[in-house]
């Protein structure tokens, strides 16, 4: 089968708060469009089968592997990527906690870890350690930095609790 590589569909999405109208290829994933069409390369590409979590983003607040979502499916939704976490120069509490606990080693999995953690804390602001382990189970870190990543999420959750 030869795909029609030139076909396109129009989608309207809000990415990190900014409305975008895009012509996308029907077979391109959200990951492709974020990285290649929008230049948002913070979202990473690794396994392309939804196992590593490096491409995790939030669609309408739900964490997804953007390699498994066709861009066309995201039409009408709000997408949050790692680039949308900080406000200007101010890191969000998860980013700050990751930096403090030394959670980012090579850093390649970190955008995905942050997005998964973001979704976790939105659903469960006071997670236990076991909750965090489960919430990040879809995000591989080959540096094996899980202890410091889990610690970062718990620190961020604690701060949120203290602030509210």
């Amino acid at each position, binding site marked *: 089968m030869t795909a029609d590589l030139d076909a396109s569909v129009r989608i309207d999405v809000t990415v990190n708060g900014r409305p975008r109208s895009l012509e996308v290829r029907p077979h391109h994933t959200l990951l492709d469009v974020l990285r290649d069409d929008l230049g948002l390369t913070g979202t990473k590409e690794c396994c392309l089968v939804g196992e590593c979590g490096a491409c995790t983003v939030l669609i309408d607040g739900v964490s997804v592997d953007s390699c498994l979502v066709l861009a066309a499916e995201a039409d009408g939704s709000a997408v949050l990527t790692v680039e949308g976490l900080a406000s200007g120069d101010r890191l969000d509490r998860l980013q700050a906690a990751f930096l403090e606990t030394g959670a980012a080693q090579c850093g390649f999995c970190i955008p995905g870890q942050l997005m998964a953690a973001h979704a976790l804390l939105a659903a469960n602001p006071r997670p236990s350690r076991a909750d965090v382990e489960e919430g990040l189970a879809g995000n591989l870190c080959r540096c094996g930095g899980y202890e*410091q990543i889990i610690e970062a999420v718990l620190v961020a959750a604690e701060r949120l609790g203290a602030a509210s």
Partner: protein
Amino acid sequence: MTEPDAGVLPGRVGTSPARGGGRARVTGRQAYVADIRLEDALHVKLVTLDCARARIVAVDASAALAVPGVRLVLGAADLPDPMPRFGPQFQDRPVLAVGETRYHGEPVAAVAAETRDAAEEAARLVRVTYEELPAVSTIAAALAPGAPLVQDPSMRPGDPLAASNVLREHRYGWGDVDGVTADVVVEGTYAFPMVTQFAIEPHGFLAAPDGDGIAVWSSIQHPNWLQRVIAGLLALPLSKVRVYAPDPGGGFGGKQHAKYEPLVAFIALRAGRPARLVLSLEETFQAVRRGAAEIRVRSGFRRDGSLVFRDVEANYLIGAYADIADRTVAKGTYTSCGPYRTPAARIVARSILSNTTPSTAFRGFGNPQQIWAVESNMDEAAHALGIDPVALRLRNLARPGEVFIPGDTPADGDWARTVGRAAELIGWDTPPAPGRGRGIAVGLKSGPTTGLSYSTVRLLADGSVVIHAGTSDMGQGARTIFAQIAAQELGAPLDWVTVVMGDTAVVPYDQQTSASRSSVLMGNAVLGACRDIQGRLRAMAARLEGVAEADVVVDRGEVRIGDRVLPIRDVLVRGLGRLGGEVIGVGEMRKEADPDHPLGGTAAFFEFNCTAVEVEVDRATGDIVVARHVTVSDVGTALNPSQVRGQDEGAAIMGLGHTLMEHYILDDGGRIRNLGAIDYRIPTSMDLPLRLESDVIEHGDGPGPYGSKGMSEGALLCVAPAVAAAVRDATGVVIRDLPLTPERVWRALNEVAVP
């Protein structure tokens, strides 16, 4: 964050400031190779065959070339004849397969197109006519009489082993193994499977014509080595090859040496345009792996537990091309007597070619296989002798300063303290909880045997600092360490220090980023450059103050003249005067080769770790739960305790991967059947020990800055034998093959259960 001691500013050595490059890593701004967009770049896709070995009959690119957007299809015939070859040990790897493919996934051709879609589509349409040939993918098959030869003997001129699949045989030893008498001899053969590095960043390569030369971007650990390879293949002077090496998204050894950079460079030059190739995860499985091994160990002991001889025969299954694999075999087996005083030793190690993914460096560099064997053998010896496994190790451990490998560096740590600390943390002297078992093991690895690192440090007019260092920061945190050293020595706040890496046109030469060397070798070069600056500041202060240079001390960020203490910045600003400018320091750190040494050089330092674990084994399923995992490393000095912890705990978890779950599954034809993340599992956050504790021993006795040693591999070395020993302690079964999957453990348990 703890308050710094008086006189110790945040960020100085021994504290844990935020990682250099950390902010970019948590904001998504860190640009890895695949994130770099070059205007007008062609997308490259490899054309491969779904078999391990084949004779290439014909390559028909007509259908591929008809795909809109395809610019070229490069085959062996389009490259110089004879085919250019490269490799760090042997120049055996062709840019593209010529005549024959030798492993599953070896590229036959490459497509370059305007879009990734077009390149992928066209790669599928390149019609390769081929005849599958018999392949060897196991040690037994490779050594069998009449086995097909992986490399044509003509590739190995003058090599007496050329008519076999044995690439090299290494022999080490001392004393008379056959002449000594032992009360107890313990023997076993231990197997370690093929596993892969699985950096989450798949390898990425870009190349572009650059004036009268070429620029290459790669997720490489050794940019200067790559520069030499490209210059050699393209017959260019080094100065016309500019290698950009952005921080790799994990390397673990798999990104040490050139892979497809030469291919992408040829495409870029032929097309006259930039070209990019980013591998899929599946393609990285076919590009890099760790050597598999079968290692027979015989150890002889006196009844009191003293080791009297060790006899090792190690067969490592490497891939179709040598890459750096033979060196991993040579270096990984050289330390087969571990940290123990051993009166007699005989070590024979072979690197055996096969029609499989070329194996290469992988954290531990040939040692984890060997240590799996010898430390498992040590545990069996403890049982045979009726001696506690900790006591057996302590009895035989080399003491500080003791020569334990004749002709090599003496023991450079008080290793009994490391073992003692691990035993203490796990509570070795108290029984484990009911149903649990405990195991302990030690790991020793020889550090770099040679080294050469240069660094340039620039103290700018305002007292801020720029460091040039050719190390690749792949997560180990080299940027932070170098910045901490300069901050300490030159009195600059840490956030006034910039570390420039990864550009061979700008940054001076560094031999390589491997063997946990960078804190020690590049760290000393950075320290040397800072000291060079301090010397110039001393002269400056003497001139300004009208005193003799000998009366000026510059140390730890301060200038002292008698009782007067001046900040470096004051002297700098006055000394530079109205024109401003900067003070430039150059540092160089060499570790010379020793041609008479079997490895070409003695160990710069040893990495030493002791791992103790407590496990629960589900007898119904064979599933192992690591309830406790204690890892203690002798690091000399922890320059950045948070990063040291990250390296130790990360290595421990990576070690649990090859211990419990990771292995390639090959079919009879030598094809990898579990390519990719679904069928090849690595540890996730759900696979962690229930409790992981790491600790360090710091005696300031290393050769690096402030007494540091390299430490990034240690905590991985002996995880497997520690876990297997704990499984034995819990269940009574001895398992000598990895990984300890539920199925393997269940089978072992049930064989025991059958009367």
